[in-house]
């Protein structure tokens, strides 16, 4: 009879311990394995301030549609252009993008002067390079997959579809999206599969 009592007792104990597990241990891993990393360094040497943000794209995908503030609703942000930039509203960015997508790789915009600007299409990426002033000026490099730009412009005329862009980013491969480098600060934004950044 002791055995009859002991068996259910041991079973209950085993179930209890198995159900408990370590504190709040997650039961499943994230669905998407892509992470968006942002590194910002302001200043140099020991006085520098460094900020590192690592966000899983799946988290961004989940959170962005839930943001409901000001001009940001349902994963889309409304663009309202006024003042000196009002003329930009007349530009049909979707048609420009369509034209860019259908053309071969190459440079589309090159501005040479005090600042040098270059906009190009290369291997399915939209590439923008800005070089401010002489050699020591600000350098900006942007390299965005075309699918992401298309997803970004997939909303209404005056909307940017951020949620779709993040989704497209997650479906794309690893890569550096933005680097900004000047004498005082450095910014780097990239996507990879590592959940920690260097």
């Amino acid at each position, binding site marked *: 009879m002791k055995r009859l009592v002991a068996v259910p007792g041991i079973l209950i104990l085993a179930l209890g311990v198995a159900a408990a597990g370590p504190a709040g241990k997650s039961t499943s891993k994230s669905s998407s394995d892509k992470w968006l990393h942002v590194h910002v360094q302001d200043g140099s040497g020991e006085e520098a301030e460094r900020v590192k943000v*690592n966000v899983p794209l799946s988290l961004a995908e989940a959170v962005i549609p839930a943001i409901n503030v000001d001009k940001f609703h349902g994963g889309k942000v409304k663009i309202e252009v006024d003042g000196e930039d009002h003329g930009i509203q007349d530009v049909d960015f979707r048609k420009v993008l369509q034209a860019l997508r259908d053309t071969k790789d190459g440079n589309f915009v090159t501005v040479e002067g005090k600042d040098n600007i270059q906009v190009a299409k290369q291997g399915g990426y939209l590439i923008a390079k800005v070089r401010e002033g002489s050699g020591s000026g600000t350098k900006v490099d942007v390299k965005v997959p075309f699918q992401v730009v298309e997803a970004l412009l997939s909303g209404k005329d005056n909307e940017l579809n951020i949620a779709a862009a993040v989704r497209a980013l997650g479906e794309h491969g690893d890569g550096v999206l933005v680097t900004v480098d000047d004498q005082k600060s450095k910014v780097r934004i990239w996507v990879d599969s590592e959940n920690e950044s260097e």
Partner: protein
Amino acid sequence: MLRIFGNERGFSLSGGMLAAAGVGAILAGSFVYSQGLIRVSVSEKNPGGDHFRIAVPGVVVPVAMAFLPAREIGKHMPAEAIQHLPMIEAALDHLRTLPDCTLVQVDGPDEHVRVRVRDGQMLVDVNDSGDEVHVTLPMGSLRSVMSKLESAAQYAGAQGNAGESCPWSHDGHHGDHPHGSEEID
């Protein structure tokens, strides 16, 4: 039955009760362990500064939340907080599934901040020139707080305190709250 137990090779009622109590204690301990510990540690760095440390079993939070009246919380909830609840809820649901990682790291000359996820717990460490703060929050505890806040927000929405837009509607329409003024615990 008692007689049968008593007659079988010395097995007694008191022994059975003791075993049941032991099993109960182990199960209760396992449950408390599964909910994790909320730890808060604050140390002021100035001479003679205060040191404050507290560790509370996470299991206390759902119990405590059960006693808090959602209606009263809802009355005092700022509209901005209500507006951001869906976002926090979405983030929290997802954070629970994340592997160990550092979400935010700030290192400056006078301050260091880390927001990390470790074993399903949110760890926040702040170390600046004035204070050193360490907080550990089991996600399960945060979930129960969120559930209560959601209930409270429904009361706030029912009473029209939610500001200009309904937080549960992404397109910001008024009056489409699913619960209206029904009773919510």
